[in-house]
């Protein structure tokens, strides 16, 4: 995982708060006690109807007149799109970058080169070639299914908001852009027709690169024009990620479900994301009290484990968050308040980040259904 991806994953922190407190009351209740510079760090709660990029990819609307169904309108599998032009298998096998990509991804012989060409062709207004729109739509669903399944199996207690963020960190536009560009080495077709002519590049070679109508165009060096007249314009990250999704769906078509699952495991789930860093709690004390009550455990107590330099300029306090005799978490800080809050946050994280010893997803062969947890009983 690249540095930029790590930054992305850590930036996407989620606030969990107690929704039972009325919002108006919650905001005005302690206004006197807050610091005047508090507004700097206050984070607005995310919109409840916010859609992540992987969710948007699953809900792409197909506005296209070419979609036809000759037999029965209710037979949804029979809907097809017709294209004027397609790249044949023979033509596709002459493109060097397609052959290289096929070899780099270690795809099987069943996987046709022409499918890769189609995966790299996004829908544009001026092109009549077969595009990857439906392929990426299906690939988005495949990715979303296997990644969510993996996350639920490994972290069965994750709150829904964290689960969605973790899924986004795996298969969001920016992650898949990183996979496509930096791992798979897919290139965007950015040169003009004149440049291609001057370079004496065969016409066919452009189909080996990712072709899409971009939101931004570089007019000249240092000047970027933002905004496109085309309705089909997409961002660079979306175009690259759609190519990945389309390639995944192509694998399903040629090699079947098991191969697709293995491919996703090797290329997507092998990337490391830090789920523990995605948490942010608004009132951890209240939450822990409710959580322990729901788990039928004793209410939390904070005990001082050790301290040093209480009267100095840099004291260190180590406190433990206990439920009865069980220590749930340890917290340290330069004030008792900091140590206490950190211990409460860690106790909550210790609950949510539980991992079974041998996690099995439901699509695995030796999966046995088991009851792990009652879920979030108090939200």
């Amino acid at each position, binding site marked *: 995982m690249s540095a930029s991806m790590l930054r992305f994953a850590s930036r996407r922190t989620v606030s969990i708060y107690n929704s039972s407190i009325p919002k108006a009351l919650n905001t005005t209740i302690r206004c006197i006690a807050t610091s005047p510079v508090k507004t700097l760090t206050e984070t607005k709660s995310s919109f409840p109807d916010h859609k992540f990029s992987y969710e948007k990819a699953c809900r792409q609307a197909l506005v296209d007149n070419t979609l036809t169904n000759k037999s029965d309108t209710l037979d949804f599998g029979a809907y097809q799109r017709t294209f004027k032009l397609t790249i044949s298998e023979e033509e596709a096998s002459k493109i060097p970058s397609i052959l290289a990509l096929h070899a780099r991804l270690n795809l099987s012989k069943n996987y046709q080169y022409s499918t890769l060409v189609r995966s790299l062709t996004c829908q544009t207004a001026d092109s009549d070639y077969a595009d990857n729109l439906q392929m990426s739509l299906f690939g988005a669903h495949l990715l979303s299914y296997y990644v969510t399944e993996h996350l639920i199996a490994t972290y069965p207690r994750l709150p829904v908001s964290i689960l969605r963020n973790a899924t986004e960190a795996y298969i969001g536009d920016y992650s898949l852009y990183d996979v496509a560009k930096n791992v798979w080495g897919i290139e965007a077709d950015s040169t003009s027709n004149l440049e291609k002519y001057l370079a004496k590049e065969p016409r066919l070679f452009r189909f080996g690169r990712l072709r899409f109508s971009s939101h931004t165009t570089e007019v000249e060096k240092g000047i970027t024009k933002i905004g496109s007249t085309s309705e089909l314009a997409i961002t660079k990250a979306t175009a690259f990620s759609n190519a990945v999704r389309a390639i995944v769906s192509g694998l399903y078509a040629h090699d079947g479900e098991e191969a697709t699952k293995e491919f996703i495991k090797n290329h997507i789930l092998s990337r490391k994301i830090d789920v523990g860093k995605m948490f*942010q709690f608004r009132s951890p004390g209240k939450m822990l009290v409710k959580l322990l009550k729901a788990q039928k455990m004793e209410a939390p107590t904070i005990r001082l484990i050790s301290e040093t330099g209480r009267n100095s300029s840099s004291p260190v306090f180590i406190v433990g968050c206990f439920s009865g005799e069980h220590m749930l978490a340890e917290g340290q800080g330069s004030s008792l308040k900091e140590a206490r809050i950190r211990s409460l946050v860690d106790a909550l994280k210790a609950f949510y980040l539980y991992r079974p*010893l041998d996690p099995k997803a439901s699509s695995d062969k030796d999966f046995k259904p088991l009851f792990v947890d009652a879920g979030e009983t108090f939200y």
Partner: protein
Amino acid sequence: MFPITRATVKTTFQTTVRRLNSTTSTKEPNLPKKLPVTPNKYNAKSSAFNLKPVLPEGLFYHPAPAAPTPKLTPKAFLPDSDPRKTSKLYFPEETTKIKENLQYMPVLSKAPTPHSYHMTAKDVEELQKLRDQGVSRSELKKKFKVSNHFISISTRPSQETLKKEKEQLDKVVKKWSKGTRAARELREKEKVNWYRG
């Protein structure tokens, strides 16, 4: 180098090798003496006091001297079906380090357990109304039989009080120097990390 005599020529290649590798002194005076060990910086004589630990064979449990991580689920949070819950090998510090020393760990704070739930929504509304009118805290406490804390969490201060407090705060903030303001802002930003862990 070595004088080529009849004797040296006669010796076979194998015996030469054997002789060169042996530590015992050879009869021939010109051959350099073979050292018992390759010369290095370590001085066995002066470092004799520096005893090397002789570890018994096998596996060791030697955790890093670091704060426990929430990734290691405490036994109390493990489901009953998990074999780690009853294992003695999982998180042994819970008994060795914590449970035996619990008496030396003073309680700093406990989750409050409210004793009575006599206040209804209507009562809180009335409490808010009286507070807005400027009735003193002691009178409110006496009338509703609630604590100071309950009044502050269930009601909000009146608009007048809020305005007054804000004016006072703004006055104080105006007096802050650039450095003070920066330090205050930094402190607030650091506090955000407490809640992320």
